């Protein structure tokens, strides 16, 4: 119905808009908010529907429909919907696409509305966590998931290799890149498995940044800053060279085109977010999570973020903003914390969060909390899709046995400089 009404004619569209706002003012009629998400997971959807149900207590006539768009195509399909004149009211946003959306003016500034909302307490969100989502006083999204990247490790394999537990090394301050490299090599030799697997085995494709940024930052480098590329900086080159050596010299990292899944026991370590802990019960081996290894520049935790934004072209912006506020209030953030690590300081410090994930022991969870507070997101940019696309072919060249690391990284910088 809604779709048909919207698309018949311009006048129809206008009339529908007028009617909608009239109804909204009256607040008496049934309304539907369309909310795009990239999860199809039943537990996630159940939780989201629960929150929507709670919203009905104050807005009895409002239903929220969660529409799943596959993660791989999410940003593209969302763009199509917005450009196609059929924008959702709200949606999840990836950290790498929000700058482009802000630049294009298609996400609504909900800052004023949030500040006016009673009891919302916008300042409870930590400053670093909000960095990506706000510009001065303007707020274009609220992070609902601020999840650090942690090292998942196979305890059994560590034992088999006669290695000290990584957590112990962390305590001793010895969990460095060198230790990590050494561990990976020994793990590979001692077990019929790879020492380390990049995030989801996608380190050479969709997760290049996840693969290279932790060491680069640990070595004090950066991807880009103020329009200048940092990949060719000696610090970054040193970090990437270690990775390259691990892949092709030590052969301790699952190389390109090979399969070595941590969760099925064919790699001893990987990097991932704590949501992946849900995969562990069926893995059948003892495991743990540890922070990312440190480098000369100390610890450089990295977080992945996703936020909730209201779309500027939606018909029910006010209502959508109200729902966004409701969804990210302290109470619901706590509810979501079972799956998505929160960015609200009050929730982060609460026992509720520390105990939220029954799979992860409290002391390991504390590392998670620390990482959230200190962590920063991966480099972002409004031209991110093009930058990533321009980087990709050069990184393909990097991940070959005979690659000249400094030269390839210089080529990466040359390729993306225009977009920066």
């Amino acid at each position: 119905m809604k779709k048909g009404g919207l698309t018949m004619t311009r006048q129809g569209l206008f009339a529908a808009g007028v009617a909608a706002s009239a109804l909204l003012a009256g607040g008496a009629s049934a309304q539907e908010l369309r909310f795009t998400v990239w999860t199809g997971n039943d537990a996630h959807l159940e939780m989201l529907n629960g929150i929507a149900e709670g919203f009905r207590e104050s807005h009895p006539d409002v239903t929220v429909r969660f529409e799943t768009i596959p993660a791989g195509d999410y940003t593209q399909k969302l763009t199509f919907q917005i450009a196609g004149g059929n924008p959702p009211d709200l949606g999840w946003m990836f950290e790498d696409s929000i700058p482009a959306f802000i630049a294009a003016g298609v996400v609504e500034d909900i800052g004023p509305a949030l500040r006016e909302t009673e009891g919302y307490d916008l300042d409870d969100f930590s400053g670093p966590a909000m960095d990506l989502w706000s510009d001065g006083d303007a707020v274009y999204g609220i992070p609902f998931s601020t999840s650090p990247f942690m090292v998942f490790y196979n305890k059994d394999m560590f034992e088999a290799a006669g290695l000290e537990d990584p957590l112990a090394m962390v305590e001793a301050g010895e969990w460095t890149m060198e230790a990590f490299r050494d561990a990976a090599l020994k793990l590979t030799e001692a077990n019929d498995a790879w020492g380390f697997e990049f995030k989801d085995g996608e380190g050479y494709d969709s997760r290049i940044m996840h693969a290279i940024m932790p060491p680069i930052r640990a070595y004090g480098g950066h991807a880009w800053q103020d329009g200048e590329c940092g990949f060719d900086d000696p610090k970054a080159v040193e970090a990437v060279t270690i990775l390259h050596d691990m892949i092709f010299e030590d052969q301790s990292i699952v190389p390109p085109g090979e399969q070595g899944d941590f969760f099925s026991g064919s790699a001893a370590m990987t990097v991932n977010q704590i949501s992946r802990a849900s995969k562990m019960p069926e893995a059948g081996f003892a495991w743990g999570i540890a922070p990312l290894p440190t480098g000369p520049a100390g610890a450089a935790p990295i977080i992945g973020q996703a936020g909730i934004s209201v779309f500027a072209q939606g018909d029910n912006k006010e209502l959508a903003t109200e729902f966004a506020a409701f969804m990210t209030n302290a109470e619901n953030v706590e509810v979501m914390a079972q799956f998505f690590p929160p960015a609200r300081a009050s929730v982060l410090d609460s026992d509720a969060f520390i105990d939220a994930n029954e799979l992860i022991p409290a002391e390991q969870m504390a590392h998670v909390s620390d990482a959230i507070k200190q962590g920063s997101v991966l480099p972002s940019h409004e031209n991110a899709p093009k930058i990533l696309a321009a980087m990709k072919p050069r990184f393909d060249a990097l991940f070959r046995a005979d690659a000249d690391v400094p030269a390839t990284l210089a080529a990466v910088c040359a390729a993306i400089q225009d977009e920066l």
Partner: protein
Amino acid sequence: MASLNETGTTVRAPRAPWLTLKRRETIEGWLFVSPTLIGFLIFFLGPLIAVVFYSLSEWNLLSQDTTFVGLANYEDALTQNPDFWQVIRNSVIFAAGLVPMNMALALALAMALARPFRGVVFFRTIFFAPVVTSAVAWAIVWKFLLQGDAGAVNQMLATVGIDGPNWLREPNWAMAAVIVTRVLKMVGLNMILYIAALQSIPRDYEEAARLEGASEWQIFRMVIWPLLAPTTLIIMVITTIGSFKVFDHIYLMTGGGPENGTLVLAFYIYQQAFEFFEIGYASALAMIMFVIVLALTVVQLILRQKGST
């Protein structure tokens, strides 16, 4: 018969003078083609014209900002963007590898399977099966088979002592892999076109040549090949144009990588339009593709004209 008697006819006789039988035929004719024609105008010709205008603008899909930029998009492609020439090079390599391999294999298979023998239907069925299979399925399965050391192809090569390359990870091997797997997918179609052509050649020619003592190769070279020329030309046109259209195969197998080694024009257009949302630049690329395909067709039609005279 009631409708044919005198009274009936006099009632029917007066008729608007302009509706002659000829006009009637014209009106009926246009009515018959109108559904196809109107749809064609709206969904094909209109868009084709629109591409020209789009290509003269800079247009961001997300923000809906458009600016008229003249020929800047073309200039960008032809002189500025280093990717463009690599894309053209890739497309040409793809076509140059695919077309001869496809046609040679198709002809060889057709020669083998044109005459009936026990099992001929079995083999024809197998060689044609990939044609009816979705390109997506074909690409998915081959991508799976061509994984590095764990892939079935390399595992099998390993059993005979060959250390297979990391097919889809090295630019040249990846290009070879997408070409070969595409040939395997489509060769059946050309094979049956050749079989149909071979079967329409009267056996008399071949027998006459044999009586004159020609060898098998001479028969093929002097009798069959010239008679196949029209078919060969049609197949060449279809296959060449087809090779420029290949999108799903590349999209799924390599995504244009590695190192842009398999980034071909069709995929590049898609990427610019629907991943980077550069509508203007993508439209300029589309126009360039249109011109290339048009030129290829014209060249081949001219060859055909020359061949027939």
